[in-house]
């Protein structure tokens, strides 16, 4: 239930609703979309990436001298969890064709395709299989399936959304494989939302010029992820799953090829060496680094582990200066601050509204632009609503959707959202939600080509951990597509590569070399990475945690 002082503003939202409804029904844009100059202006002044302390120069590694997100630079300029000389690589604990690091959507898709291409794999995952951002995507997956749409139109939309920084070959792969992925997932048993005649039920997302958002109610990721996991688990002879065992360093061979990884059992605190002919990083993003102090929509394990292990081994990173803030994270009640409010709400006609009940931005600008506009409305124009704890937000008018589509539409199509708020006595079919941008996605990542190869032979990357396909801003629904398209490609190409490779002597010397580089750059730090888990222990407790030596965040 909203506090009494918000009542006046809520009444204004109701008052302007009929007029806004009329506009929505007219078929014209409900608000004039921004021009290129207007986009640039609002981004420069209000997007968190463009603030002075948001970036700094990284002093070591392949991207040395580049300006990247401050928290990422901090994480990369860090020590390994292991002393390389203590690792015995002469008798690896496991041997396999492909080591897949990460058990989310990309990792599972890769395992399935690897298996179909004759390769056995091990999935090393930090939490449980499927504990990933893939599980949490609500709104949908883009794919150009409709007759009035085309893969090339999807290509142009993705490029424009990414400020034309996207790598063309990757965007082509993404958009051209889209329809195939819809079909592949359906054959695996994903239940897509459909029209009564069997055609796909699709909606708009931010920055799309055609409706191409495919969904499974608002549990899209949950349905896809569980289907992929189930399929992986149906083949225990070909895929070995190691849960709570993240990979904390890569192994190379004496010829510089990737040859597996060192795994850490987080429960027994043992380390294991896995020898693999090819390795796929599918570790997802870094929302739990809480960049610029923002709340995040991300899952508990999203700490960018793949970035740091690949970087130490010499892999190039791309667009690590760009962070995605989802325009609509929840800000009230406090318990769900930062939680994702799917963009599908705006795709279905929901509008962002200020405290006077006014629409102040086109509801479906690309995410960075929409986020910056929401921040401007609150911080510059002071037209936001402040929560009792001091957070700013604007209304996201969901009852409008119910008026457009008829009573019961939200409950049927947004069961997760309805449920999320009704727990706190807010009925989103009758009252709007209060929202503010929330840290959502790692736009950049490890540089790859359209075969998911990196500059290190034998190292492949798929999903959020990779960089290039989304340029500096991803559109909604392109990451579900991304992890499927590139997860599949990584599985296939790594399996083909694994057939011909024969590894020479294994080494983790690169870890010691990186340590030397830190020393030469005079970087003194007690940071240890991969970070593995964030910690939310209050200050008073931490003061009493006096164990002399900590192993990173794990005490």
């Amino acid at each position, binding site marked *: *239930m909203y506090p009494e002082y918000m009542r006046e503003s809520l009444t204004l939202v109701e008052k302007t609703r009929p007029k806004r409804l009329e506009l929505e029904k007219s078929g014209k844009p409900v608000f004039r979309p921004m021009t*290129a100059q207007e986009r640039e202006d609002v981004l420069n002044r209000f997007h968190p990436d463009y603030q002075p302390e948001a970036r700094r120069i990284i002093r070591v590694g392949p991207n040395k001298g580049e300006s990247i997100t401050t928290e990422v630079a901090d994480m990369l300029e860090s020590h390994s969890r292991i002393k390389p000389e203590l690792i015995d690589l002469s008798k690896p604990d496991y041997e396999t064709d492909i080591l897949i690091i990460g058990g989310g959507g990309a990792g599972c898709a890769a395992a399935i395709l690897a298996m179909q291409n004759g390769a056995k794999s091990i999935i090393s995952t930090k*939490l449980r299989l499927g*504990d990933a951002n893939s599980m*949490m995507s609500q709104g949908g997956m883009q794919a150009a*399936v409709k007759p009035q749409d085309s*893969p*090339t139109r999807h*290509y*142009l*939309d993705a*490029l424009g959304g990414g400020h*034309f920084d996207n790598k063309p070959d990757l965007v082509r792969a993404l958009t*051209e494989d889209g*329809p*195939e992925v819809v*079909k592949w997932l359906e054959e695996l*048993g994903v*239940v897509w939302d459909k029209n*009564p*005649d*069997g*055609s*796909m039920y699709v909606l*708009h997302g931010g920055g799309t*010029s*055609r*409706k191409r958002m495919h969904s499974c*109610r608002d*549990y899209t*990721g949950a*349905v896809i992820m*569980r289907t992929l996991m*189930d399929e992986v*688990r*149906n083949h225990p002879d070909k895929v070995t799953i190691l849960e709570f065992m993240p990979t904390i360093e890569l192994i190379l061979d004496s010829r510089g090829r990737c040859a597996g990884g060192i795994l850490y059992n987080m429960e027994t605190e043992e380390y294991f060496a896995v020898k693999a002919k090819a390795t796929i990083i599918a570790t997802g993003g870094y929302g739990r680094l*809480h960049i*610029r102090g923002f*709340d995040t929509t991300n*899952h*508990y*394990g999203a700490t960018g582990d793949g970035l740091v292990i690949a970087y130490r081994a010499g892999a190039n990173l791309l667009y690590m200066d760009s962070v995605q803030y989802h325009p609509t994270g929840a800000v009230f009640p*406090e*318990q769900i601050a930062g939680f*994702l409010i799917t963009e599908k709400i705006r795709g279905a006609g929901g509008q962002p509204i200020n405290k006077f009940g006014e629409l102040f931005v086109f509801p479906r600008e690309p995410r960075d632009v929409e986020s910056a506009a929401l921040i401007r409305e609150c*911080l510059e124009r002071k037209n936001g609503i402040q*929560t*009792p*704890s*001091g*957070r700013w937000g604007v209304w996201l008018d969901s009852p409008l959707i119910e008026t457009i589509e008829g009573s019961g539409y939200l409950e049927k199509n947004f069961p997760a959202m309805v*449920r*999320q708020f009704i727990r*706190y006595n807010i009925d989103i079919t009758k009252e709007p939600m209060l929202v503010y941008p929330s840290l959502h996605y790692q736009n950049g990542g490890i540089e790859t080509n359209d075969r998911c190869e990196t500059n290190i032979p034998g190292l492949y990357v798929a999903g959020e951990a990779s960089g290039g396909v989304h340029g500096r801003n991803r559109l909604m629904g392109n990451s579900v597509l991304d992890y499927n398209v590139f997860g599949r490609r990584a599985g296939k190409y790594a399996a083909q590569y694994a057939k011909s490779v024969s590894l020479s002597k294994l080494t983790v010397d690169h870890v010691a070399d990186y340590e030397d580089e830190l020393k030469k750059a005079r970087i003194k730090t007690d940071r240890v990475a991969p970070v593995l*888990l964030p*910690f*939310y*222990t*209050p*200050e008073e407790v931490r003061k009493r945690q006096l164990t002399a030596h900590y192993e990173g965040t794990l005490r």
Partner: protein
Amino acid sequence: MMAKKKVALKKKARPEKAKPEPSEPPKKMTTVFIMGKAHQVPDDATIMGAIEYAGYQIKRGAGCREGFCGACATVYRMPGDYKIYTGLACTTLVQEGMWLSQLPVIPAQKPIYEIEKLEPNVTAFQKLYPEIFRCVACNTCTKACPQSLEVMDYIQAAIRGDIEKVMDLSFDCLCCGLCAIRCPAEIVHYNVGLLAKRLYGRYLSKKSPELEERLREVKAKKFDKEYAKLMKMKKDELEKLYYARDTE
């Protein structure tokens, strides 16, 4: 329940956030028993927030933290009440005197099968989950479900071979396993629901002719020329094209 105060769980404050009112009253606290140990925690915390506030670093028992992954199944009792309650730690609020424990993992059978070789009818359940026919219709599973799904009804639908109904009723299932851990007939409901969804998606949902047509076009390389053109364009040309494009 209304949140009044900020639960100090985050490492850093939000720099973009305005300062809280100076008159903000001190946090109201409540006592909960985490695995039997008493802890003072903010009275508006979620169970997960309370566990972390008390100083625990969760390894098992946290996943998405937003009610999608089912990693944080929790059981609890209230003082003077014989009942066992269930909930997700990430979305359930603490109450005074709550005695709680998370379930780190739910032991559950997951038969191996080939989806290509199953038939979308009751035989799939008979073969893989024969124990569902032991359902005594006690409805404990439904009462245990943190998503308020009609769990028993979908098990009954599975017994009848009504796959569409199982799919529909189990659609929002998070596989947290609280149904399975409470079931006197030892059924693993959520895996039954997952199987039904996969059977429905693959075999029973009406197919899309548009999708087939598009796949034919892609296979016939219909878009190759346009891709080649677009991929050669400079930024200013692309920009012009992008801002001039029409929107559905």
